[in-house]
Structures are given as structure tokens and as C-alpha cells.
């Protein structure tokens, strides 16, 4: 993977991700679950672009994080909302950036406390490398390599536009 020189266009990646998913989703039966906060924004975009019938869910993995005993409870935990029956569902977990894979692990653990899905896929805008768990995205239109000291964050402007920002730790 090339080292990032400039940041990817989040809006273009949303469109590319929807195109990649379209042949593989059933608008009447596929359900999206976005991970707070960036994943929820992307899930809302995908839901509209793919014309899905089931309202998207949202998950905050604060209660399932594996660094709770090192870092304590996350200060701004949000309420997880799964507005459909997880039992037997086809679910696509949606996040903005795939990094270590730990958040995805936590999200899958949380989903199983609502029921047993028939299938879970993973859709992300970009894969920045640095995996620490055996997790791979099903749909991912972009990848780049970033040093561990940098955080790639998705931001939403007041007009709803999405963009990436690089934050030094």
C-alpha cells in the first residue's frame, strides 16, 4: 500500500462503496448497522443510495471494547439502536475506516447479544492497514497505509458533507 500523500475524497468513496455493494444486497432483506460515529453517517448514505427497506441500525461499541480495563469507560457512549430482528438477518456492518479490527470484533460481539444473524458482511470506506485481528472487509473501495501515530477521522460538515481529516496522536 502506498503511504498517503493526500487524503481520499470521502464523498467519492461513499458512491464507490454503494456501487460495490449494489449487486450483493437485497433491498428488501439486507440491513445495515453503522458504528458510531462515522459509520452511522456512511450507513445513512448507503441506505439511501441502495434504496434499502429496513431502517439502518447503529452501534456504539463502548461496552464491548477490549481496552476498557486500560482506558476506562468511553466518555461519550451513545445508545445502540437495532430497529430490526437480528435473528436470521443479513447484516452489513458499516464503518468509516478499518484499522486494527478491534472495533469490528466488538461490534460483532454486541450484535450477537441481539440474536444470531444469518450472515454478517463488513463495508468500509477505506482500509488504512495495521490489522491486529483476523478481520477483512467484504466491501472496501480504497486502501492506504498510515503510520500508527496518525488517526484518519471522518468528519461531517454542517451541510452534511463528509470529508477525511488526519489527526496526529
Amino acid at each position, binding site marked *: 500500500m502506498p503511504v498517503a500523500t493526500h487524503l481520499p475524497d470521502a464523498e467519492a468513496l461513499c458512491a464507490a462503496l454503494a456501487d460495490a455493494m449494489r449487486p450483493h444486497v437485497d433491498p428488501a432483506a439486507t440491513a445495515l448497522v453503522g458504528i458510531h460515529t462515522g459509520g452511522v453517517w456512511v450507513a445513512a448514505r448507503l441506505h439511501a443510495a441502495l434504496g434499502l427497506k429496513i431502517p439502518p441500525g447503529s452501534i456504539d461499541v463502548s461496552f464491548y471494547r477490549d481496552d476498557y480495563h486500560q482506558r476506562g*469507560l468511553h466518555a461519550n*457512549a*451513545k445508545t445502540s439502536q437495532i430497529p430490526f430482528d437480528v435473528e436470521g438477518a443479513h447484516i452489513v456492518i458499516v464503518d468509516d475506516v478499518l484499522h486494527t479490527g478491534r472495533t469490528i470484533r466488538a461490534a460483532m460481539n454486541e450484535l450477537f447479544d441481539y440474536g444470531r444473524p444469518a450472515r454478517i458482511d463488513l463495508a468500509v470506506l477505506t482500509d488504512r492497514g495495521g490489522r491486529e485481528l483476523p478481520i477483512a472487509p467484504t466491501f472496501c473501495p480504497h486502501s492506504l497505509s498510515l503510520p500508527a501515530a496518525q488517526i484518519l477521522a471522518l468528519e461531517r460538515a454542517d451541510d452534511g458533507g463528509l470529508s477525511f481529516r488526519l489527526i496526529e496522536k
Partner: protein
Amino acid sequence: MSAFGKQPNPQLNSHGELQHLLTIEGLPREMLTRILDTAAPFSEVAEREVKKVPLLRGKSVFNLFFENSTRTRTTFEIAAKRLSADVINLNISTSSANKGETLLDTADNLAAMQADMFVVRHASSGAPHLLAQHLAATGRDHIHVVNAGDGRHAHPTQGLLDMYTIRHYKTDFTQLTIAIVGDVLHSRVARSQIHALTTLGVPEVRVIAPKTLLPTGIERLGVRVFNDMREGLRGVDVVMMLRLQNERMQGALLPSTQEYFKSYGLTPEKLSLAKPDAIVMHPGPMNRGVEIDSAVADGGQAVILPQVTFGIAVRMAVMAMLAGNS
């Protein structure tokens, strides 16, 4: 450092995070707001197929109840279990004259069994504080202490769940007039409520009680005192009833419970003086026909059962915050 010698607030660790929950008094508004904010996502856990999250997996929570309480102990137990902790309940009756010694001896034994958290209910004011101090002095301050009610001093999780309930129904603390009614003299709940309400910016907190059931100098906590219930209830948004604590009465503080009900029992007629959308709260257990009429307790303005449900989420939030601050 000797015990809490240098720390301004013994509940906070060196990073300013909540280490123990002993009292609401002295906690900043941001801390109270954060606890309430954290409780909200925990309330959703009860809606799931699996009503558990793994935060306290492998941790041992000891409920040390030196004074009987079914409801509080049960909600702490449910909260700890929904956090995946192992919960051990000890109901210890206190006949010993030297209660402090008994408490610390018990705690030392349980600490030797790798306890991670003590939830303490005690008839003596300051007992949980003493325990936290003892743990710090003996180098075991990784063990967290939650005050589940001590004497007439404090009942912080009750105060917090009451705040959560008020915020749920009324949203903005800074626009409210709130009345606390009844046996304030014996009530640790009232003290925690008053500290929480004033810290959260409620502009008018009223206390309604006969003179014999009011501690002297209660005005200094920033409340308006009313001896006439009808006058005090006029225009309030929230009515917080207190339980008449018969078991703590010494001497003739009251003529009779019937007399008390006549003057200070919440009836539909007295409640009609409050705002039409006022809510009625009670920490339980209720003395029907003494401080509250059944028509009110079971009526449309009562939020007494939601208080119990919210209490689980608030206690989950408190325990999860403490256990994460090591």
C-alpha cells in the same frame, strides 16, 4: 500519603476521575451530567435478547448490607450482573456496639478474597467513607466503594436515579421548581437530592415538612422551607415524596400517622396545586395512606416505577465508570 490526606475530594483519584461514589456533595456538575449521560445507553441493554454487557466480566462485586434493604440491594445486584460481574450478597445485621470495627474486619476478609468493588449500606453515617479511607491507607485503593445509603448522610445512587428520572420527563433542570416533601430530618435521600438538584442548576428547590422533621439550618443547603404543604406545592414541576421513617423516630416527633397524612400526605386535591403536568416521585418503599394517597401513587402523574427501572441503568453506569478508573 496518609489515607486521603492530600486529596481535596476523597471520591476522585489523582487524575480527577471517580474512584468511589460516597456522596453527591462536592461533585462538579460535569461529573453528575456525565453519569446521567452514561446511564442512557445502559438503559437500552435491558431491551436486548441478552441483557448483559461484558464490562465487569471476571470482577467480584460484594453487596455489604449492614441494614436491610430489598429494593436497593436487588437493583445493585441486577446492575452488577448485567455488567457480567460476579455478585456476592452479604446481609450483615449490626448488633455490635462498635460498628466501625465490624465493617473494616468484614471488608479486610473480603478484600482477601480478591474483591473489586464494595456496595455498602450502613446505619452509621460515614461508614462507606471510613471503608474507602481504610482501603487507601492499606494500599488497596484499587477496590471501589459505592455508598448504597449511610445513616442520615447520603444515598448518592438514589439521588442520581432521581435526577435521571427528572431529566427524562422534564429535560432542562434550569427551568424547574421542585418540592421535596416529608421526613427530611431522617432522610439521606433528601440530602442527596438537594445536593444534586442545586449542583445541576435547579433554580428553586423547596422543602416541605413539619418543623419537627426538618434538620436545623437546612436553608443553608440552598432550599426554600415551607411548613404548609399546600403553599409549598403551588406551581411546582416535580413533587419528590419521602418515606416517613417510622423506624428511625425517637420521641414524639409526630402526633400520629393519621394526623401526618392530613397535613403532609399527597392527595389528588393537594397535587392539583402543582403544575398540571407535574410528576410525582417516591424512593420507595411507600407508606400508602401515610405520606401518599393510593390514588396518587397509582395515578397518571406518578413515575415511581420508572424510577426503579432507571435505577438499574444509573447503577450500571456508576459501577462501569468506577471499575474503569483504576
